[in-house]
């Protein structure tokens, strides 16, 4: 087992994930959706978890909440929430944390709200699941939460059904629900992907503001580097179930250490490279069921050689910059 790169900071963090492995035991074989993932996020901090579709980002989020459905299972590692390991916690105690201390926002706002229940029902139940308070009081809190995320005439909107809202408005409602119990950590799973760019910008702004104001730690899962660039404090880049690189936002974007990160940054359209062909990472994301031996990125990497037939461990060539590659760019000038 590799030493956790971030274990030294875990006591200070809201959440510290150490060597997490979540595997799916399917008939076709074991799918290692999350394989030896370690990261941490502190109070008021925004961590961007970046990677292509199917790289295990969402499963990481569900593992933290304890919502991995069979045949999936957290098989190893620790999820320390304020120092308390969630992995071995009984289900009832995990339920009490869900939605009260750790909340989640999902990708598709059209699907996350129950179509046949009114907004007030869906908000009030989220409060009453954790606190024995008066319904009227819970209702008032729901109202205030809607107002806080910028929904006009919240009293009226409380009595509406989800289909009476637009996509952006529904995502605001979902964010309001996540914020209801003032959680310490919110996991946002691509919450702006399904939205228009203008709405996307508004939601990002709201999320950032709310985190700064309340000191909530935020894990923003996305495949879109540009979203993270305007939002996160730190980023972790994930590839095929593993985190390949992490660090402060500016450091990673300016001086990527891993070839995959460099490829990702290179494939974002930019004004400086107008007219030239956009870079593409060659090849396709490997199927998690059938990963190449050694480094999973090996077959798509320009720098791969025989060394890459072994799985690279995490090293820290630059302090605070864990990276999982034999050929990292730490010595180079970018």
């Amino acid at each position, binding site marked *: 087992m590799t030493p956790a790169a971030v274990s030294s900071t875990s006591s200070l963090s809201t959440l510290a994930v150490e060597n997490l492995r979540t595997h799916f035991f399917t008939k076709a074989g074991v799918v290692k959706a999350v394989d030896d993932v370690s990261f941490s996020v502190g109070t008021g901090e925004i961590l961007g978890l970046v990677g292509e579709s199917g790289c295990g980002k969402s499963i990481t989020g569900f593992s933290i909440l304890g919502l991995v459905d069979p045949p999936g299972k957290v098989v190893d590692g620790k999820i320390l929430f304020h120092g308390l390991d969630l992995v071995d916690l009984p289900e009832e105690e995990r339920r009490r944390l869900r939605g009260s201390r750790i909340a989640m926002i999902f990708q598709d706002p059209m*699907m996350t*709200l129950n179509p046949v229940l009114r907004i007030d029902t869906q908000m009030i139940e989220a409060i009453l699941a954790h606190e024995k308070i008066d319904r009227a009081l819970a209702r008032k809190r729901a109202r205030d939460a809607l107002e806080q995320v910028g929904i006009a005439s919240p009293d009226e909107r409380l009595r509406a059904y989800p*289909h009476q809202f637009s996509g952006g408005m529904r995502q605001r409602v979902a964010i309001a629900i996540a914020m209801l119990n003032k959680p310490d950590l919110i996991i946002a799973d691509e919450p702006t992907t399904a939205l228009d760019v203008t709405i996307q910008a508004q939601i990002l702004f709201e999320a950032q503001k709310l985190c700064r104001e309340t000191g909530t730690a935020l894990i923003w899962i996305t495949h879109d580097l540009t979203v993270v660039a305007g939002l996160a404090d730190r980023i972790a880049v994930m590839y095929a179930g593993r985190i390949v690189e992490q660090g402060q936002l500016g450091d990673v974007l300016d001086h990527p250490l891993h070839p995959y990160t460099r490829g990702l940054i290179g494939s974002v359209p930019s004004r400086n490279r107008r007219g030239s062909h956009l870079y593409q990472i060659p090849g396709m994301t490997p199927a998690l069921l059938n990963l190449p031996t050694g480094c999973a990125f090996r077959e798509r990497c320009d720098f791969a050689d025989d060394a890459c037939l072994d799985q690279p461990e995490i090293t820290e060539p630059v302090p605070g910059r864990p990276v999982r590659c034999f050929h990292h760019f730490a010595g180079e000038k970018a």
Partner: protein
Amino acid sequence: MIVFLIRRTFQSVVVLLIMSLLVFVGVYTIGNPVDILISPEATQQEHEAAVKALGLDRPMWEQYRVFLTNALHGNLGDSFVFNEPALKLILQRMPATLELAFGAMFIAVIFGIPLGMVAGIKHHSWIGRAIMSGSILGFSLPTFWVGLMLIMLFAVIFGWLPASGRGETVLLFGIPVSFLTVDGLSHLILPAINLGLFKLSLTIRLTRAGTQENMQLDYVKFARAKGLSNTRVIGVHVLKNILIPVVTVLGLELGNVIAFAVVTETVFAWPGMGKLIIDSIDVLDRPVIVAYLLITVTMFIIINFTVDVLYSILDPRVRLGDVKS
């Protein structure tokens, strides 16, 4: 809503009119009831007198016109056999059939929805599989055979429940019902199970499919992410969503159960409409057949209307003003 009501009423009248014509023509072509009704030794004069008395000597369109005129005054004709208004004969037997049908649907819903949800949630475990295998039996075993087996087992071998009839009835709002007396209820149980078994299987299958489909959806995961208990996620969030298709189908099935309870009523000698229509068809008692079919159509129209209203209550996305058909 009011627009919906007016449109629906108008449509219903058109449907009834078309139906009455079809039924009338259909019944007219299936034979001469007089041949069956009067004794074979009757003279030619007696025969002609009987034909004239029943109005069968007039052309068909004339007979239909007379029938329609009378129907508009609430008179669907007198039974050839009982010499009583056909409508009255049917309405007398209707409460028995309705009671049986509602009993059957009650069993289907009360057991079908929970069993279906369990089968949907635990679809990999032995209990889920057992429920599904059981529902296949409910689908495939013929009603008359199940009825006979029920009688054999519970009435003959164990002697727990009576095998036939309605038992003691009491008046509820002027209508005789069995289920409020112990004796009546014991008479109702077996036929209701017999009639309800098929619908029970249907409900289980519908509920299971809905549960499996809904459990995969994001709103369930989001509800769990809010920290709701499983009881609430399944009992409120999932249940409200699966009720929509279940109510639609069961509503239509209720009409079927009422109209075609014939087999069960025959096996258990239940004095309902089904038995009356079978007897009437035997002797070509035209007015009763026509009246029965028209009442059945009316019942279907009322049930469909109720389902539409229920649907709009269950699913907020449906507003009755928008229903175009």
